[in-house]
């Protein structure tokens, strides 16, 4: 606990210290990175100590009339781990990614908010009562809002940030309501299960649903995800990486925390969470296929991965409800391990996207191309991340998804509606895996292979050293988890230790068997890959290799425009999901004109949830507001009259 507090202190200091060093950019950057790295290292030590100490370590102090209390249990440990691992690498990346000398003040401010966001996330994970949780949650939301505003000159950025603020604050409002309900029923702010588990089932369900609304909007579960694809492209890449990799997971953390607090193993929770996960997962990846902006595409993949995590948790809930605790443990552990894994590979991918944008200034897939030769390190680490996010061995995504699959297969013993749900989950997981592979072959193929489609892409240069090192390290960690999964699977199961319904479960036999098999499978795949590469090299030895332009198709004057585009590659699959994805195409073609003339084709896809929100919420509200506009006529005298009227009404009512 002491380590954690010192770590927290150091992280906060790393935000404040650069404020004093505004005039010396490099010193400020160095001090920030060093202090933050020290803080995270201390935090990791603290996590290790907390996991060794076994019991719940806690600490509380008084603030105003409340007492704020912090504690670290096994669940919090699991959510803190990615935070402490990923953020030093992100800071390393930002060392050369963030603005040059003319933007010093802005850089320093972004450091402050970055540290504040980190500290708030640590506090959210450690909060042991509602007041602490809510305070930390709000600081987290506001700090991340300010980070999104880094490029505030652009209207697009400001709009995205406002959208994010709207979602995060309405989400927080729902969380407040859920906590208020809890407080009204128990009379205590603390997260103690004794009082809460005695509540009636209907109240518990209401609390869970309201809280889910709030946590779901933070996590980006499907109908509440609208802010994600706007905020992530607007924010600087390392901020997107932190938000997408770590922050949105805290939504899942909050949901799990509430679920275990309520301590009500009923089927209904799984029936809510599983379809939500399937919807987010499948639609997330389909929208990702349809989008052609690198960062927006990655944002949709975050939604997809939240869906996978939710599916794992949903299977866990189903297992608890059905009394199958082994299945429950595998479901939760898979979801939790995926939290760590997604934090790693999604940060890696966002950093890669940032490197591409930094070097070319482009985010649109269809104007990139041929970057693998120009940015070899970025390209290869991005490829590693892509394989990992598609859930392919021998990388880490495969491990956690396998655990969720395993929970699903254990769930095949259930009957009736539950069985249907489990089968649907397994099918969705498989579909998500396939579609994610399709999406990332599209992305890697269009961005890194082929010929450059624009001058900027042709002139691209490799990312700067600090950025490269961060990406390489992240890729290595992904590979490490994939090749040596046993300790990480163990950690994920250890994360369930302090959760009441799963605490006394002994699984070491089955877990060690599975980790052994997974390790073997991963090494087999690696051996196969290396073997095939070696074979190819051996077979081509001594043969003349002629290099032509990619996808030249035998043309002598091939130019970059005859290549596949992102839309043409993805459209087949997107078409299949047509009712769920609205595709608008504009084609000004050769209608009726036999002679060649200029033609034009473009397609745009709309997010169904966005359209729904616009039609069901924002348009009616705007309509009402327009109808009430006559009240705002700008005449002071009438405004005073309004005030007097209001006072009289209040007096009469009182």
């Amino acid at each position, binding site marked *: 606990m002491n380590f954690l507090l010192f770590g927290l202190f150091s992280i906060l200091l790393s935000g404040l210290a650069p404020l004093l060093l505004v005039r010396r950019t490099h010193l400020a950057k160095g001090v920030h990175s060093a202090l933050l790295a020290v803080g995270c290292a201390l935090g990791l030590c603290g996590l290790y100590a907390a996991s060794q100490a076994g019991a719940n370590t806690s600490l509380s102090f008084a603030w105003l009339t409340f007492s704020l209390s912090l504690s670290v249990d096994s669940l919090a440990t699991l959510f803190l781990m990615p935070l402490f691992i990923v953020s030093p690498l992100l800071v390393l990346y930002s060392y050369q990614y963030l603005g040059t000398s003319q933007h010093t003040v802005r850089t320093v401010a972004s450091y402050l908010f970055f540290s504040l966001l980190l500290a708030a996330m640590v506090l959210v994970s450690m909060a042991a009562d509602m007041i602490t949780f809510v305070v930390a949650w709000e600081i987290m939301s506001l700090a991340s809002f300010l980070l999104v505003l880094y490029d505030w000159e652009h209207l697009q950025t400001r709009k995205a940030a406002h959208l994010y603020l709207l979602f995060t604050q309405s989400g927080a409002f729902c969380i407040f309501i859920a906590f208020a309900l809890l407080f009204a029923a128990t009379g205590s702010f603390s997260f103690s299960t004794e009082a809460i588990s005695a509540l009636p089932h209907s109240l518990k369900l209401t609390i869970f649903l309201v809280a889910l609304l709030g946590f779901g909007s933070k996590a980006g579960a499907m109908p509440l995800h609208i802010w994600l694809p706007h905020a992530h492209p607007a924010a600087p890449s390392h901020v997107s990486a932190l938000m997408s990799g770590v922050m949105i997971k805290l939504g899942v953390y909050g949901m799990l925390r509430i679920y275990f607090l309520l301590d009500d193993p009923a089927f209904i929770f799984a029936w809510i969470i599983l379809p939500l996960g399937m919807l987010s997962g499948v639609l997330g990846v389909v929208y990702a296929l349809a989008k052609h902006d690198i960062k927006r595409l990655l944002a949709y993949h975050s939604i997809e991965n939240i869906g996978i995590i939710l599916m794992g948790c949903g299977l866990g809930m189903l297992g608890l409800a059905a009394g199958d605790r082994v299945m429950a443990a595998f479901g939760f552990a898979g979801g939790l391990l995926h939290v760590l894994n997604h934090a790693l590979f999604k940060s890696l991918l966002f950093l890669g996207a940032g490197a591409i944008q930094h070097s070319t200034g482009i985010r649109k897939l269809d104007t990139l191309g041929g970057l693998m030769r120009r940015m070899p390190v970025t390209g290869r680490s991005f490829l590693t991340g892509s394989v990992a996010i598609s859930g392919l061995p021998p990388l880490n995504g495969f491990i956690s998804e396998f655990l969720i699959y395993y929970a699903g297969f254990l769930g095949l013993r259930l009957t009736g509606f539950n069985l249907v749900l489990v089968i649907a989950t397994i099918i969705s997981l498989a579909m998500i895996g396939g579609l994610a592979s399709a999406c990332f072959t599209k992305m890697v193929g269009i961005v890194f292979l082929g010929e450059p489609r624009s001058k900027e892409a042709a002139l691209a240069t490799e990312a700067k050293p600090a950025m490269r090192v961060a990406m390489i390290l992240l890729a290595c960690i992904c590979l490490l988890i994939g090749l040596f999964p046993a300790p990480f699977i163990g950690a994920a199961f250890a994360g369930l230790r302090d959760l009441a319904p799963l605490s006394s479960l002994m699984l070491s036999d089955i877990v060690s068997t599975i980790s052994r098999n997974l390790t073997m499978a991963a090494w087999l795949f690696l051996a196969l890959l290396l073997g095939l590469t070696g074979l190819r090299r051996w077979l081509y030895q001594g043969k003349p290799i002629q290099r032509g332009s990619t996808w030249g198709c035998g043309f002598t004057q091939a130019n970059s425009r005859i290549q596949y585009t992102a839309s043409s590659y993805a459209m087949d699959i997107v078409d299949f999901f047509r009712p769920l994805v609205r595709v608008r195409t504009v084609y000004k073609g050769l209608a009726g004109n036999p002679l060649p003339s200029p033609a034009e084709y473009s397609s745009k896809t709309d997010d169904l949830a966005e359209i729904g929100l616009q039609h069901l919420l924002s348009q009616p509200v705007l309509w009402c507001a327009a109808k009430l506009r006559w009240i*705002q*006529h*700008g*005449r*002071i*005298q009438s405004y*005073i009259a309004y005030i*007097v009227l209001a006072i009289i009404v209040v007096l009469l009512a009182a």
Partner: protein
Amino acid sequence: MSAGIEISLAIILLSVLFSLSSSRLMTLIKLMALQGALVSLLPVLLNSANKLPPGGIALFLIMLLIKAILIPALLYFALTRMAIRREVEPLIGYHASVVVGLGLILLATYLSRYLQYSAPGVLALMPITAITALGGGLFLMMSRTKALTQVIGYLMLDNGIYLMGTALIKRTHSHYLVELGVLLDLLVAVMIMGIILNNINRAFDDVDTLDLEQLKD
């Protein structure tokens, strides 16, 4: 001494009515000075039976200074700087305003009946005057277009509240200390209003608040 109190209350009432019918800003400012002086003297008259401590006397002197001299002086300078003499420019005519003022007195009498129950032993005219001044101030703000009139209406509103406080709350030192604080706020408000008035004047060549409608989007 009761007669003196009643007379000054009656003068305050009449000054409210007069201000509703007045068409000149300078008259309004003079009326405010008179009203401020009377209102800040009232507690002294009420307390004349018991001996006031020197601290209390100092408080009342400060109040008199601010209410009767400082604020009207500020308003006077604002008026001369902006070189406007008359034109209160009512949205509701002077005669109608006086009728409204009379109606206000009736309403106040009706309302003060309830107050008599909750606070017995208070001079009957006191809450009536207070409520009338309060309502008159609000009405002045609502029915006149010149920004300066809004400040004056606000002052009258504050006079009404102050009278109400004098009528209802047991008179102790600390109560007036709070009043003094409020008064300082008011002074600052008047100064800020002066700045805003100046800005309106510069932007529109007039201090007519109807011009501010152009600012809405």
